[in-house]
Every structure is written in C-alpha cells, then in structure tokens.
C-alpha cells in the first residue's frame, strides 16, 4: 500500500493539485477569462472613480485644482496680449473700434474670442471686413478693410454715405462735407447704387448741371438737373435711354432749351414737357406780339 500521507522521502509530485487543476480549467474557460481580463479592470476603475467622486468636497477640490492649473497656463506671459494694433483704418475708425471693443490690456489670449470680436468690429458700418490675429510680440493685430463711400444718400432724417453695395458707411452733416460724391435720394435708393453709378457715368456731358438722382417708387430713376429739369428714366434699360437723351442733347442742345421734363418712361413715346411760358417767350423772341385774345 502507498503511504497515506505523502512523506518527505517522496520526490516532488509532477501532478497538479486538485485546486491548481481546477484553477487552470477555470482560467481556460473563455467567459471567465474575458470577465477577469476586461470586466474586472473596468469594474475596478469605474467603481473606485465613482467612490472617490461621490464626495462633494472632493469634486469641488478637483474642480479647483483644474481651474488653478488652467489659470496658471493662461496667465503665463507667453499668452498675454498687451496692446492692439489696427491696420487699414482711418484714425477716426480706429478710435471707434477701440472704444467699441473696450479691451482692458493686458489680457490672456485664451480670453479673447476672436470670431466674436471680429463680428463686433464688423458691426461698425465703416468696416467691410476685420481680420484678427495675435502677432508675435503679444500684439493683437486687427486688419480692417474699410468700406469706400461712393454716393451720398439723402433721406428725410439725414445724409449718409453709401458704398458700392449700398451699405451705410457713415453719416455726414452737410452735402458740402463731401462735394465730390454724387447725391441720390428717394426710398430704396440704396438698393440700386451700382445702377446709379452706371447712370452717372453715362451722364458724363451734363455732370456740371447734375444736382442728383431720385429713386422713384423704388423702381426707376429720375435725374434732376439745375433749373429743375428732370430726366425721367424707364425701369428697364435706363442707361441706353440716358445715352439717347445725351445724344439728343448733343445734337439739338435739348437740355439747354426751355424744357422741364424729358420723359423716357415709355421708350416708344418719349415726351417733352415745356415750361409754362415757353411758347410765349419763344414767340416774343421771334418778334411776334401775342395779341390779346379776345376769347
């Protein structure tokens, strides 16, 4: 019979013990294995994190630590912005931009919302486009493209400068502030600035007499000359119509005559309206005495 208790005289038993054998088999079980290798670490990490974060003061402490670290990074001198440089703007506009943004330097570059700031600058009428960047040397570089005024628009309230797109650029207090710009008036005139400019170019010969242009009923233009003469242009193709008037003027000196209105609204039937006493004046100049009508 074998000894009931394994004595010391026996050599090392190569056989696995029952427990080791069972553990090995358990370890080879796929479900157990995946539980132990994936499930257990995930559970441990989740559980311990949850346990740690279940306390309010710890959460607050963590938030504080995070804020502190973030502030420390933000306030490093490398990220500070000390001044703002504005390019491409007139001094008055630059001053307007500065006062509108009202940034208090020094400021961390993390605190500047570039897109919002650019949008705020672009809210100014005179600014077409603003480009912000933090330049080396801790300078906030603002490159502004100004709107270029091309006409003066008279409304009932005020006189304003418009750019080529019809956008308001600035307000002027008197026509004489910008005598170089043409004047337009009427409701909806700002929506047709390019057309106005085209007409202006076509009206070259009568530039000195031109007082302004009036948008009628938000659809067509009237050209107002001195002596209260008006050229009523059609809604469609106003430029050829004006050129036609210019040709007539050149050939017949139409506008130098005693005409109040040249009405080209219907291109098949242009109409001239004479001044009220034009015929009398004409006859008088020809030596014809108008007899007192017996009628």
């Amino acid at each position, binding site marked *: 019979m074998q000894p009931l208790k394994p004595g010391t005289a026996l050599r090392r*038993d*190569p*056989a*696995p013990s029952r427990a080791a*054998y*069972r553990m*090995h*088999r358990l370890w*080879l*079980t796929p479900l157990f294995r995946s539980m132990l290798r994936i499930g257990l670490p995930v559970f441990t990490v989740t559980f311990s994190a949850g346990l740690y974060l279940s306390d309010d003061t710890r959460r607050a402490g963590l938030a504080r630590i995070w804020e502190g670290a973030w502030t420390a990074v933000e306030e490093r001198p490398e990220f500070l912005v000390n001044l703002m440089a504005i390019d491409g703007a007139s001094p008055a506009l630059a001053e307007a931009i500065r006062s509108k943004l009202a940034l208090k330097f020094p400021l961390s570059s993390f605190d500047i919302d570039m897109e919002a700031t650019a949008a705020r600058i672009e809210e100014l009428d005179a600014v077409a486009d603003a480009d912000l960047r933090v330049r080396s040397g801790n300078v906030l570089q603002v490159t502004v493209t100004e709107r270029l005024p091309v006409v003066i628009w008279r409304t009932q309230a005020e006189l304003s400068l418009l750019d080529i797109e019809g956008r308001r650029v600035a307000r002027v207090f008197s026509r004489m502030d910008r005598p170089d710009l043409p004047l337009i008036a009427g409701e909806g005139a700002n929506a047709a600035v390019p057309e106005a400019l085209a007409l202006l170019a076509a009206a070259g010969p009568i530039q000195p007499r031109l007082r302004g242009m009036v948008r009628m009923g938000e659809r067509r233009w009237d050209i107002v000359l001195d002596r209260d003469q008006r050229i009523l242009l059609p809604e469609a193709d106003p430029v050829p119509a004006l050129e036609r008037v210019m040709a007539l003027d050149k050939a017949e000196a139409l506008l130098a005559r005693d005409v109040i209105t040249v009405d080209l609204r219907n291109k098949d039937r242009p109409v001239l309206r004479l001044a009220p006493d034009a015929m009398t004046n004409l006859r008088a100049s020809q030596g014809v005495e108008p007899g007192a009508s017996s009628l």
Partner: protein
Amino acid sequence: MTDLYQSQRAMRNMRRAAMQRGVIAVLDVGTSKIACLILRFDGPDRLREADGVGPMAGQSGFRVIGAATTRSRGVRFGEISVMNETERAIRTAVQAAQKMANVRVDHVIVCFSGGEPRSYGLAGEWALQDSVVTDQDIARVLSACDVPDIGDGREVLHAQPVNFALDHRSGLGDPRGQIGNRLACDMHLLSVEASVIRNLLYCIKRCDLELAGIASSAYVAGVSSLVEDEQELGAACIDMGGGSTGLSIFIKKHMIYADAVRMGGDHLTSDISKGLQVPVAVAERIKTRHGGVHATGMDDREMIETGGNSGDWEKDRRSVSRTELIGIMRPRVEEILEEVRGRLDAAGFDCLPSQQIVLTGGASQIPGLDGLAARILGQRVRLGRPLRVQGLPQATTGPAFAAAVGLSLFAAHPQDEWWDFDIPSERMPTRSLKRAIRWFRDNW
C-alpha cells in the same frame, strides 16, 4: 444490463454534444504511460491538401491541438490499482494537453487494456413484419440475440453488429430498406470486469471530466494500425503495451475477436531488474537502449555498464554483455508471443482468408521482434505504426501511441453499437400507449 445500456446511450449523447462544441479529449490509460490528445472538430472542408493527409479513414475531420504524455502511476495490467495516483497522473496529462491546446475540455473518451476482455459471438433472428427492413427491425434483431452468460460482475464494453443476413443472403453491411422475410444478425460482444470500468469512471469523474465514450485499447489499436485492406481481408493486431498485450482480430472492417494477455513490457523490465540485480529504472533504461531478442557474436563483446549506487565498488562496477540481456529478455517475449498464439488459435485465426499479423504498441519496438514473431505467429508479420493524423506531434507518432491515435479515430467515427439503435417498442417499458396502438394494429 439495461443500466449499462442507458449509460452507454448517455455517453453517445455526450459525445454528440462534444462534437457540437468541437473539442473532445482522448485519454489512453495505459500501464506505463497515460496519453492525452485534444481533438478539434471543424468539418472536413478545412483539410489542407498540402499536409499530405488524404481524406481516408475519416481522420481528416479533426485535428490534434493538444498532446501530452505522462508516466502512468497506480495502474497494473491496464487496471487502476491505486485510485489517487492514477487520478493525479490523469490530471497531469489532461492539464498539460489543455495547456498546449489552450482550450478547456470537458468531454473525454477513454480506453484501457485491462479487465480481462472476453469475446462472444452472438446470433439473432427476426421474422420481418412487413418484408422491408426498418430501423425498428434492426433493433429487434439485435435484441433477439441470445445473450450468453457473461459471468457475474462483468459488463458489456462493446456490442457491435458484425454481419446481417436477409433470408439466404449473408454479408450485408446495411440491410435497411431491403426486402426479405427473415433477418438474421451476428453480433460481437466484448465483456470486461465491471469493477474495472467502475473504477475508471469514478477516476474520470474525480478529474471533473465527463465521460463521452469508453473503448477497449486492443480494438482502437487495431483501428489505427491496420490498413484498410488488412481490416477488410482479415488481420490480427497485437498491441504490446506495458502491462498487458491486447490482440484484436478484424475482418470486413469489423472486430470479431479481442482478448488480452496479462503480460507486457513491464514484465521484461522486472525480469531484467531481477536477473541483473539492478533497480527498475536502470533496467528500463537498459531495456530501451540495449534490448533485443536475437543474439549474435557481436553482442558478446558489447558490455553494458549496469552501475549502482551502493558505494560497494564491486557492485557498482558490474557490467553485463548484451547477450546476457537478450538471454533474459527473449524467454519472456517468447512467452508473451506463445500466449498470443494460443489465443489466436483458440479464436480460429487460421481459418481467416488472410492471416496478416501486425505488431504495435510500445513493446513492439524491441529490435528483432518481427523475426521472432514470424517464427511463433506465422510468416505474415509486420510492425505497425498508427495512422498519420493531422496535427499530431512527431513525438507521439510512434507505435506506443497506436491506442491513443486509434481512439481519436474512434471518436471521429464510432462503430455502430447495439445501444445506438432504439429500444424496440415492445420492450419499451413506459410507452404503453404505443404498445396499445400496436396491439390494435396487429389484431384488428
């Protein structure tokens, strides 16, 4: 007997479950070693032609993914004598194989060589009810076989239908669907000691494994080491193991006889140990390194140091010539072969059309054994090695692993046994309704 029938059926279901899971272990509990192979079944289409393994014998359906061998302990004559030791040895083998396969196995098929297997030829007849042979008819003819008295305390290990005869036509492999009047069958029944099986079952259970089948190692060694034509034409496989020598006779691809001689390689070792007065380990080493059965003049001059650890110079310096060694070994080998001869004669082996004898098993590696066997057993003797199986490590392809490889073939394609057929309905104890219906149909 019904008890065993039920448990064998349960094992078959277990085997089916294991095949579905795809992994099954094969355990050869021998006297000198315990071998464990882990098989993975993944369908026949996975076979790669480059391996040089053709689709023959159905061994291509599986692949060996784990193999381990350990020295057997507590086993004598192929029977468990010390349960704890054997259990440890099985645990060692199974754990090592699992480690190699990196997969857990729950189902195991076991073979063993002991238990004094005895063969019986059974015959049964059945008059067919309606001229076409059905599954039920086969079950009935199998249960109509007159069971001999297999003795007290013995159990049926294999009960395989070997031959079917329908009226005057004999030699039918599968009579189902054929038309005739009388169905007769021959069955081969192998019985072993019940206590041996019970011990083995208990041992497997203690290792947390489920038994999915049990086989005689003489049978499975024949399955793996006899080639197809030998199995067809008639051959005997002699599996010379450590503690017992199993022999099985095959014809028409069925085992018709199996027996075991309770002598094997371990007896050679103990003879050498006694004769040369050396420890068993030294005797085993001398046997494997210098053993033989034919002495020549050269062997007189080949001196073998036996050594010793006694501290006595005279004893430690001893040496023997190889002739002396052969003189010790040869009578025992002759005795084993004579005994096998006797069993073969008793079985009527000389009546078979082909009398091929295949020697396999660990002890068949003695040099010159085939010459000696040819003198005793007959001229047609060859040394057999087990079939090549996919994934089998080189170290386990020797003849010592014939039973393990055969068992894996057996696991892949088990022979139909008596318990694979349903119990005929008239013997079914519970289905009384079915019986009533049957009675009505027969009588009205």
